[in-house]
């Protein structure tokens, strides 16, 4: 089973999974239907959990296992179920109408990925650090672009729920950045962050529900009464 400890294998596996995460992110941007959007987000979280597990496995950073488990339970399983039930209860039309049309928004996401690489280059030079634990350091550019595309998704979406998804995918990007840079932040902070993300999602869900009740639509761009 020596090949299981071969860093080369780890490296290729992680870069493959990171590329998958990026593709899923762009798929979410190009998505037309709300429910599939939620499911794509679930898969993305699952892959992220896998990346975390593999890094933990190869670098023996066992507090990462806890993080990977949390990611799996919370973001891959619990949140998609809650959001889907919310969509069913409020019963709104499933189609998503982005502010900027899909082809242009995909183009912008590409641009943002490019920007992610430029920013990563400006300050992060993994090849110089000689330490052995270089595994998984080449994921930072993807993490930054994940963060920026998530931000762009919030700006681009009319539907409140997809804005929540955008926010959650931004936090996924941060999770990936933390893993790749410093093998995740200290455990207590990791727990705190996940607790906040969970409570945040709950609060947004309740707010979404009440907006759905009073405005009988999840379209956030109709919230225009407070001006000046």
């Amino acid at each position, binding site marked *: 089973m020596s090949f299981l400890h071969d860093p080369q294998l780890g490296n290729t596996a992680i870069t493959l999974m990171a590329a998958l995460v990026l593709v899923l992110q762009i798929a979410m941007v190009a998505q037309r239907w709300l429910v599939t959007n939620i499911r794509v987000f679930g898969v993305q979280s699952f892959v992220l959990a896998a990346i975390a597990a593999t890094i933990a496995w190869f670098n023996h950073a066992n507090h990462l296992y806890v993080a990977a488990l949390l990611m799996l339970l919370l973001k891959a399983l619990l949140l998609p179920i809650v959001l889907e039930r919310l969509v069913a209860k409020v019963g709104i039309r499933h189609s998503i109408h982005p*502010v900027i049309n899909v082809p242009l928004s995909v183009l912008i996401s590409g641009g943002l990925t490019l*920007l992610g690489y*430029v*920013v990563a*280059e*400006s300050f992060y030079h993994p090849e110089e650090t000689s330490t052995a634990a270089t595994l998984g350091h080449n994921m930072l550019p993807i993490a930054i672009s994940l963060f*920026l595309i998530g*931000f*762009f998704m*919030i*700006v*681009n979406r*009319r539907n409140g729920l997809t804005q929540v998804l955008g926010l959650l995918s931004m936090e996924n990007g941060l999770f990936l950045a933390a893993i790749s840079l410093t093998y995740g932040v200290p455990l207590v902070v990791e727990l705190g962050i996940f607790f906040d993300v969970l409570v945040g999602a709950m609060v947004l869900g309740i707010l979404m529900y009440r907006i759905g009740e009073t405005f009988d639509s999840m379209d*956030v*761009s109709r*919230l*225009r*009464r*407070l*001006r*000046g």
Partner: protein
Amino acid sequence: MNTFPSEQLFKLGLEIYLAAGIFGLLAWRYRNLARIVVFSLTALGAAVEGGACFTALVSGQTSTVVIPSGVSMVAWTFRLDPLSCYFNLALAVVALAVSIYSLGYVRGFAAHKPVGLFCFFYCVLLIGLTAVFSAANAILFLMAWESMALAAWYLVSFDHEIAENRQAGSLFFIMSHAGTACLLIAFVLLGTWSGGFDFSTFHAAGAALTPLRQGALFLLFIAGFGVKAGMIPVHIWLPAAHPAAPSNASALLSAILIKTGIYGIIRVAFDFLGVPPLWSGFLLLAIGGATALMGILWAIIEPDLKKMLAWSTIENSGIILMALGAAMMFQSYGQTALAAFALMACLFHIFNHAIFKALLFLSAGAVVHATGTRNLERMGGVIRLMPLTAAFFLVGALAISALPPLNGFVSEWMIYQSLLGGFRSTTSVTRVLFPIAGTLLALTGALAAACFVRAFGIGFLALPRSPEASLAHEAHPTMLAGMGVLAAACVALGVSGSMWMGVLGSVTHQLFGINIGADAAMASGLTLGSGLQAAGGLQKTPASLAIAVLLISVLPLLLWVLWLRGRTRVTGPAWDCGLPRLTAHNEYTAMAFSKPLQMIFAAFYQPRRALHAEYEVSTFYPTSVHFESEVAPAFETRLYAPLIARFMARAGSFRRIQAGSIHAYLAYIFVTLILLLIWSTRA
């Protein structure tokens, strides 16, 4: 430290003001009690302050008063140098008169207005003014400066039920706040460049600065102090604010608040900046001339009595600025003796103007209070119903038109002398400028005489033009006492102007190092007095004229006693071209009186006239004629209104960035993030 009596008295005066203010607040329910106690306390306080400052002035000593204030950001240090004491003395005299006057005047509106608050802010104004004149460090100066403006704002918008008063109050406070902003920048710049915020560190700090910095500082100080002094472009608040305040407050505002601006300019020009640059003196002379001429031209066509007095305050502040500008030009030419004389003329006119403008406002206030209207067109015949008030107003009018026996003539004569002195001493082509300024002063003086003949003649003489004017009654004795104090001061200064030179001399001694008041020889080479002047000294010419006038009037008195007293007098109707009975409608109106001048200076006024007549049979027999003539206030309509309108329009259009769409809000943050990321990668 052996405390001088003046220090003790100064501190005592402030404490009395404070006690009066707090009492006013506490006793706000018992209106009459509050009124009597507070105003008698302030009168006492004013007397104490006057004593303190006079002793300090005469002794010529500079002493500092420190009030311990524990851990506070503000150091409560006051400095009683001759310049501060001079202005405090003017404040004390006016405050004494106004306090006595207020005892009677406030009774009028005590029933339905918050008298307690009025007394409190009146005392805050007095403390603020005293503190401004004697502050020894920049922070205390600014604190006193703005609390004075705060108190003045309350007094101006005192009867805020009337929308016009509210707007006047807001306009005043905004412009004075903008002025304070300029002062704040200037003081902090000066403080950072000179290393400290005490006025002693500022002394002659200007000399060490580069000309650019000195020029910038000077412009900021001029802008800041100019707003309070009522200089031309920033004067628009004055004709709105002073008439809005109750008359005792507007007397204090017009007499003393304006002088804080001029005190500031003197302090900066001669104490902080050492030798002011030549262009600054020229600038002040030019602005002063323009302010004086425009001030009087607007005053002469103003139908509202108190607004006319406010415009004439602007005119006098223009004259003072001219004298100050001349002093600064002489200083920059190196003629310190002539500069000292010009400054003495300026200071003397400041004191005189404080006295007779306060007298005019108080008597106008009594008339407005009695007749219930401020419009000259509805007044008339008041001299028979309020003889004493009319007499006091006449004394004020004579003084402000600079007519011989009174103090106005003495200071105006000195300003003429300093301006003429300018011609002989300076060499360059600017020396023609001084006599031209002299003629401008002559024109303003003559127009002022015409303006006050109109005000007194139309307002007080002949028949009352409206029913309420005919119901006027003589003012309350305390009001007459207040006016009496000021009238007596006018006459005393007029007759004994020369004795006042000693006091002025100690101020110039502090600023210029030479005291020409007492030193006759210096005076002779200086003024254009006749050769014999040297022997007789400066005093002979102007002040003793008052004695000559009194002497010569013995002759007609003799004629009256011997010959005319016995003549029989018959009172009959004035010549009325055969009309049945002369009524008030036959009298000349204020607008008609100033009509010739309005036509001569039409280019300046740009009057709008509308005349249309309806007639049935033929154009020669009109059934009704409608005439309407209006002079739009120049600066408001041409300069400020378009500026503000464009600014508000742009502010309105700028509000679109908060139009409610969450996507726009998030896009702002997104774009900022992207730009900053790009900037950070490149930096």
